């Protein structure tokens, strides 16, 4: 199969996020970036499919801080080809990003063959304008399913499981080529030792695909960005861990739980 995985860097929400002085964007000074979680799963699902049925895995990303490390990591895990589109991801909205990927895929760079699966992560935490996967399906006129957690090739098609709520999943049969937004892979994303990534950095290359950003204003205008005001706040328990354990045990006794 021709497996194309789209990777996106997002701010790490473990770090504190602050609003910039314009009041309409994130303060980038202390932002740390990481690979969007579902994208990591999309890569894993592609690698699992390659192991199962053969094929080639191409990873593609727009330029963003630390994206080279992520592309080399993908190669170290088993991707065959890594491509960077040197356009600043942060300045493009979801819709423009999807257009750029669509242009890449429609050009010689990507080549959508009859056995192609395009695998973006299902969504990202900064998807104000919606998910890249949905726009991409539309731009390429390919069928699209999101929130996918399992992909099985069967008779030239794929059978996928889409998550609903309450642990329920729906099984769909999808004609190829297709775009599938991956929520989680069938196995946890594999670990790759740093030494292996370093070795790949020396031996492999990241290709560059120059694609002009589309003439497209951001569809949405942000009036204001701000931190939410907490509706409430927990009563904080302080002290040594032993004290805290005793306090919690006391609370549970008061409530008749123990």
């Amino acid at each position, binding site marked *: 199969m021709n497996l194309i995985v789209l990777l996106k860097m997002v*701010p790490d929400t*473990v770090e504190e996020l602050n609003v910039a002085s314009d009041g309409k964007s*994130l303060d980038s000074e202390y932002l740390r970036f990481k690979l969007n979680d579902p994208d990591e799963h999309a890569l894993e699902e592609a690698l699992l499919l390659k192991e199962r049925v053969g094929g080639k895995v191409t990873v593609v990303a727009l330029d963003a801080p630390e994206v080279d490390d992520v592309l080399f990591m993908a190669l170290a895990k088993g991707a065959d080809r890594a491509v960077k589109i040197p356009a600043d991801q942060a300045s493009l909205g979801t819709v423009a990003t999807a257009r750029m990927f669509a242009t890449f895929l429609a050009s010689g760079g990507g080549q959508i063959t009859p056995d192609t699966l395009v695998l973006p992560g299902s969504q990202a935490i900064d998807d104000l304008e919606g*998910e890249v996967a949905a726009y991409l399906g539309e731009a390429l006129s390919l069928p699209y*399913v999101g929130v996918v957690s399992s992909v099985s090739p069967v008779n030239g098609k794929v059978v996928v499981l889409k998550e609903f709520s309450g*642990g329920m999943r729906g099984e769909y049969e999808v004609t190829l080529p297709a775009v599938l937004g991956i929520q989680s892979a069938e196995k946890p994303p594999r670990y790759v030792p740093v030494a292996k990534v370093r070795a790949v950095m020396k031996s492999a290359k990241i290709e560059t695909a120059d694609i002009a950003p589309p003439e497209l204003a951001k569809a949405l205008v942000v009036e204001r960005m701000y931190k939410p005001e907490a509706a409430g706040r927990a*009563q904080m*328990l302080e002290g040594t861990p032993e004290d805290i*354990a005793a306090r*919690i045990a006391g609370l549970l006794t008061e409530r008749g739980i123990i």
Partner: protein
Amino acid sequence: MSAAILVLVEHLKGTLADITFEMLGVGRQIAAAQGGQVHAVLLGKDVNALAARLGAADSVLLADEPNLEQPSAEVIVPLLQQLMAQKQASLVLLGGTNASFGLGGQLSARMKVPFVNFCKGARVEGGSLVLTSQLFGGKILSDVKLADGKGIVSVYPGAFPAEAGRSDKTPPVEKVAVPPGSPKVVFKRFVEPDTSDVDITKQSVLVAVGRGIQSQDNVQLAEELAQSLGGVVCASRPVIDQGWLPLSRQVGKSGMTVKPRLYLAFGISGAPEHWDGMQSSECIISVNTDPKAPIFDGSHYGVVGDAVELIPLLTDRIKAKKG
């Protein structure tokens, strides 16, 4: 300006989802401020009986056909496109749920109107509709204005009161036809969750673990604590994705919604997808190393500290109390 609002009704296995009423409620609120009608779009297989419960809408646009069980985007999007034109709708409200996931992007691309995701608030200000979106795992809110009032909006579940969208009125029903096509995405069946494991929705004590639990070995510590309390262990998505606990233990948007007497959250930051599934717990005690973790905003008690250190101490305390 008075233009129509379409609400895509969500239902699963013959039951209307709460998000349907939440959307009807916010649709009514916007229509009250701007004028215009609210139409509920109901499509599916054997769903016509549900129309009577959608009285908060001015009308129900119904497509009830055998091949409409869990239709894919390529069936729903052209129908919504057609209805937007017919009803001169400026707004389409979709559930911010897995079921409706992705429809907004496709519809927005076709209709060339903006899409607003994760919508938690709506108000009319100086004649314009201003929507509030929740971004970055609940850490940032963003206000966006729909300049000409047109847009596709994904409504965050639980953000608006469902009561505002319930009514005893019987709405007029108009049948609509789904545009023909040969779908490339075909629904086959539902895969039910594994029922051989314990049902976490029926437990009165849950010990929940998140990314902060760090390793599978530490999940065992949580197991011991749960046992001492007569409860079971559950988890947020990252732990399930690591394969440390089975899918049946997942709490949140794709997983289960739980309301135990006690929810002990260890190493869980409280991302909206998790919060959705446990916010109605009677007592929430959270432990996290990050003093700014959103989970503390909704918990009853909080501890800034290392879950892995605290869990065994708590287990010992509880065992000692029980004798």
